[in-house]
């Protein structure tokens, strides 16, 4: 009845999803994010072009940059898998952060209690198991609460992040625990005990490229998860529970049990990341360093960008690892610390928005026909 010609956009579901679109959209979203990021940089008086070039150089192109990138990518790969497996069944585990800490606490605990007389492979294996158990238990709590008490897992898993951080801080700064170095400078400035050399994880040295063992472990985890999801009965149950919980019950599945198991798997991935952090990189329980890194939250970005696909997670982890690595290398007055997180957030926003283009067609709603208008007035 109004005389104003309205126009707007409407989303229509696509009957088919062309293959090229599935690839083109994320790539375009990525560049769109860089464009928006450039605006943010410009507004805050930074030069976007040189900033991006330096990220590219320090993250990927410089001598040894890729090795550093793989170091940064390893925890992201694990926390990415953590979010990917859980989100896939609609269990929004955002406790990857705390599960990562718990993995680090458990793995360093095992490593510290290790004598020199046992073989190195056993040390590493037991750290892997301990890390997975630590993270798995920490994630099983929100899993059980969600499955059997219908408690919102987003908030519970997040609260457990803070509690895990407090536990780690307590172990090093507020107690004289087994994890804390009490000799030498450690008696004055609290810090963690360095784990025995025999428990340090190896690196695969290819000359120009050094691949951490933890990264290879992450790839193995991603492949394992991909097979689990696509080829097994349990993977099938996960798909049904994730997409149609009512149907799962109808088919005689046990959604509660599946949620708890998947929660534990999810936490185990993050816990492995924590174990790798101790075994491969820091060789010490470092609560401050862990909490500043925010690997758990970044893992959500990784998983979302990878569309919860385990194999794509490897690729995305390397890309974001490169940006993170460059961020470490460049940190300084004209490359402030929050920039990496801001760029990650922008990439995520653009990908989320871009994904809509894969699922829907954007249609301009028809403008009003003038002839009919005239008849009415």
């Amino acid at each position, binding site marked *: 009845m109004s005389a104003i010609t309205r126009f707007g956009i409407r989303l229509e579901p696509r009957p088919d999803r062309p293959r090229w679109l599935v690839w083109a959209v994320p790539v375009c979203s990525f560049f769109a994010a860089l464009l928006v990021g450039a605006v943010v940089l410009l507004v805050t008086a930074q030069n976007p072009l040189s900033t991006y070039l330096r990220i590219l150089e320090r993250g990927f192109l410089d001598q040894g940059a890729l090795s550093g990138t793989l170091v940064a990518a390893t925890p992201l790969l694990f926390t990415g898998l953590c979010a990917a497996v859980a989100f896939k069944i609609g269990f929004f585990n955002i406790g990857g952060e705390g599960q990562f800490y718990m993995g680090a606490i458990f793995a360093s605990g095992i490593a510290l209690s290790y004598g020199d007389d046992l073989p190195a492979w056993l040390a590493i294996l037991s750290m892997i198991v301990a890390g997975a158990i630590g993270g798995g238990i920490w994630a099983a709590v929100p899993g059980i609460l969600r499955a059997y008490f219908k408690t919102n897992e987003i908030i519970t898993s997040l609260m457990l992040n803070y509690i895990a951080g407090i536990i780690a801080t307590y172990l090093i700064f507020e107690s004289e625990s087994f994890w804390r170095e009490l000799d030498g400078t450690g008696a004055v400035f609290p810090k963690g005990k360095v784990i025995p050399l025999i428990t340090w994880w190896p690196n695969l040295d290819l000359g120009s490229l050094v691949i951490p063992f933890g990264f290879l472990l992450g790839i193995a985890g991603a492949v394992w998860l991909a097979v689990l999801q696509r*080829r097994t009965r349990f993977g099938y149950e996960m798909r*049904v529970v994730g997409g149609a919980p*009512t*149907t799962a019950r*109808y*088919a*005689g599945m046990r959604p509660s049990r599946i949620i708890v198991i998947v929660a534990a798997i999810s936490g185990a991935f993050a816990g492995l990341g924590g174990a790798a952090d101790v075994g491969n990189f820091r060789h010490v329980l470092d609560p401050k360093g862990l909490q500043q890194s925010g690997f758990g939250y970044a893992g959500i970005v990784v998983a979302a960008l990878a569309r919860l696909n385990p194999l794509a997670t490897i690729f995305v982890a390397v890309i974001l690892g490169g940006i993170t690595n460059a961020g470490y290398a460049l940190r300084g007055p004209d490359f402030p610390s929050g920039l990496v997180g801001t760029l990650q957030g922008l990439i995520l926003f653009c990908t989320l928005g871009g994904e809509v283009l894969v699922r829907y067609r954007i249609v301009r709603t*028809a403008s009003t026909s003038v002839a009919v208008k005239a*008849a009415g007035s």
Partner: protein
Amino acid sequence: MTSNGLAGAATAIAVAAFGVSKRFPGVIANQDVNFDVRVGEVHALLGENGAGKTTLSNILTGLYRPDDGHLEVAGLSVEFDTPRDAINAGIGMVHQHFRLVPTFTVAENIALGAKLPSERHIPNLREIEERVSELANRFEMPVDPRSRVWQLSVGEQQRVEILKVLYRDAKVLIMDEPTAVLTPIEADVLAGTLRSMVDQGRSVIFISHKLGEVMSISDRVTVLREGRSIGTVATSDTSRQDLAQLMVGRTIERVERRVTDVPASGPTVLEIAGISADGDRGLQALNDVSLHVRRGEILGVAGVAGNGQRELVEVLAGLRARSSGTITVEGEPFDRMDARHPIHLGVAYVPQDRLGTGLAGDLSIEENLILKKYRRRPVSGGPFLRTSVIRSEAVALMDRFDVRAPSPQTPTRQLSGGNVQKVLLAREMSGAPKVLVIASPTQGLDVGAVATVHGLLLEAAEAGVGILLVSEDLEEVRALADRVAVIYEGSIMAVLDAQDATIERLGLLMGGSRDAGDKS
């Protein structure tokens, strides 16, 4: 300007559509639809499922804008950008799936929407409640304006929907399949209400696919077929047969009544003894229900929606706990609430909510076909699924049950209603069940798919499956069932043999009157 305003009150046009078309991706929902509704008449829009009735009503109420054509209200061309425009133009709709907020009171629901000139900015609920009561009395639709909508029966909720439209003083009421949720008696009461509304100078657009009620309630009928308006006729000048012809475009093959060749003493496959169970709100929904189904027999369960049918089938599928009673399948009891148990005992179950419960909509046809056998060989070997077996079984089943889809990998959400039901039946029947529990098997399907589904059910019974058929469609129950049980407020009122199950007796029983049942 096509105003008939001068032609006198008797033929004044309340609302009319001229060449209205509406396309959706891949579908033409309305194509060149023309019709006009006079002031003071009940005008039926008749058409089968998918004929475009709902799209047309959504255009009339401003939810959609037509791609072509236009509407006129009282002779003036109008264009609705939003539902509010339609409401302001005096068009109100009573939806088939009620548009009510369950947690609100009746008065709050009615107050929802733009402020009327007579109302204050800060709504005074007491005042609204009084006006609702007044209105309810005037149209003889008793309802307590202070009760919460979720506490009301379906019939009462429909009254609220009608009052909501009358409260805004709508001149034209669109009723979408209003009798689908009512007992035959309630439907008669509704017909009276509609009559009194048109007598007071309003118009009613009555959307239906049921010939009987269109013949008895409406003054004129516009028939829709495949999105087009086929023509408008005065009800007094036409017959059921003519309308059916117009609606379907060919003579309808009526489902043949099945000749009962099941010996009355045949072995019982499903025995339900004295089961009681609670509904979702914790109130008792099933009260001491006892039924049995023999081998190769179809037992119909008739009743108005919401009288315990859903709870009954869910108990049978192991999805709802029961407080008492036993269920045995060929003498084997199942007692735990566990969906695996009845599946294991050979109870197939096709739920009413096909895409929400029976299938996982995002998963492919082949993935849905293994839903009940993925744990066993040959579909799985150890912890792994065998993709090649799954694929070849899917192809075979799709062929046998005539599932039309681009490929076995097509997500079931993209299938038409008929193909969805065929996928479900393919999966359930392929498990060689002893018992088939099926709820509203043809609801929402077009005529062709209805015939296919009915054929499959008769075929299954022929093969010795005992079928428990729950349906609100009396014609369907009467056409297929050997015996008919009537459920009312969670109790079985009576079990009639097919030849005794006349519409009249079933109608009385469905309304809770035991007299009819006691005679048998």
